[in-house]
């Protein structure tokens, strides 16, 4: 019975278990990770081939990095909810956990997933795309970190919405793009600054914006999630 279950601890246990379930499931099947990595490798290869010996301006290269990241996010971050719908386990989760726990558990999963994929993307991009130079590494690292959090936050709530609708695939980027656009513009700008060698403090304004975006999106999503999730 539920006697002896203090609510804050139980909530954290709940959310943590939701995360662990997704994590272990992913470790076993490796669907999301392998597909995502292949996606990133393929996209960067395409960019390499189309650039040829021409190269592109550092500004353009900064922008393109985030295009790759955006589409990688679109490939992978909806899986956590769509998979439950496909396997019919949405009802199971609804029975076991309060909506908030499901949301935070899956948000954490997406944060881990997108951080991992972004790290690989950035490394591959930096290694293979000539002309992509980062002069202020501190700005760039903070930018990638905040971008990962931001993408995960926005993508998770939109994933929840499309999973509950009937057509999954094509709708996801369509719904996500307007939401993610402020984030994209901000990180592209910050990356440009890092590329040009700006001082860390110059990017502070951009970071403030990113942090408030993340906070606002997470708070709004957690409030809306209950309505999206429950029938």
């Amino acid at each position, binding site marked *: 019975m*539920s006697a002896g279950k203090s609510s804050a601890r*139980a909530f954290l246990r709940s959310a943590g278990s939701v995360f662990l379930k997704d994590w272990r499931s992913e470790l076993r099947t490796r669907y999301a990770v392998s597909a995502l990595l292949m996606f990133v490798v393929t996209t960067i290869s395409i960019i390499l081939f189309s650039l040829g010996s021409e190269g592109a301006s550092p500004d353009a290269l900064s922008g393109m990095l985030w295009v790759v990241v955006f589409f990688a996010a679109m490939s992978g971050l909806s899986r956590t909810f769509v998979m439950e719908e496909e396997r*019919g386990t949405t*009802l199971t989760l609804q029975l*076991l*956990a309060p909506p908030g726990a499901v949301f935070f558990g899956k948000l954490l999963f997406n944060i881990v997933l997108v951080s991992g994929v972004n790290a690989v993307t950035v490394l591959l991009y930096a290694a293979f795309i000539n002309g992509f130079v980062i002069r202020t590494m501190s700005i760039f690292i903070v930018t990638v970190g905040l971008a990962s959090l931001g993408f995960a936050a926005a993508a998770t709530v939109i994933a929840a919405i499309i999973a509950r609708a009937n057509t999954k695939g094509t709708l996801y980027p369509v719904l996500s793009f307007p939401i993610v656009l402020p984030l994209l513009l901000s990180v592209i700008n910050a990356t440009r600054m890092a590329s040009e060698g700006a001082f860390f403090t110059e990017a502070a304004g951009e970071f403030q914006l990113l942090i408030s975006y993340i906070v606002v999106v997470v708070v709004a999503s957690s409030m809306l999630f209950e309505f999206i999730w429950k*029938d």
Partner: protein
Amino acid sequence: MTHPLQLVGEGLRKEYDRRPVFRDVSFSVSAGETLLVTGRNGSGKSTLVKIICGVLTPGGGTLSFRQDGGVPPGEQRDLVGLVSPYLQMFEEFSAVENLSIAMGIRGLTFDAKAADVLLERVAIFPRRHDAVRTYSSGMKQRVKYAFALIHTPPVLVLDEPMSNLDAEGIAIVRGVMEEQRGRGILVVATNDLSDIGSYDRRVDLNERR
């Protein structure tokens, strides 16, 4: 149990696309009693089951759990266990893992020994470490019973309790039902009255459209 638990539904109604599935459904079940829900296919048995389990919001009316006062909605989740054809297990995991996941997500402590006893009871013990994906439909149904009982809920809800079960499975379920009658509330939704022995209350959804 200190005070006996009561499950009360008052004036429940549900619509889809503005068309009513059922309306004005009321019932009251107390600990030790069995509620039978009957109705044609499509009459809303599963819909009512979902409302009782708290995963579907009724269009009108209230569903409440009472035990020396009302039980707040946040605590109702762990009072109910469900077995149903449309409830899926996490099939990439084994039976034991499913039980452990269930308790973890509920925020409760997992007792491995109690889980083993339960799995023995539903005749899954020998295959308990195999992925549920590899089970036959009868085994999957039995695992659902373990999944529903692992947190010893005072209210057990069974939708089509005998589906996919052979004689051995049916016997197991009858045992489970008897035991539940002894310690709490049993709700059975079915059209096959031989599924259930006796019952104390009945909701017939055929009359409630």
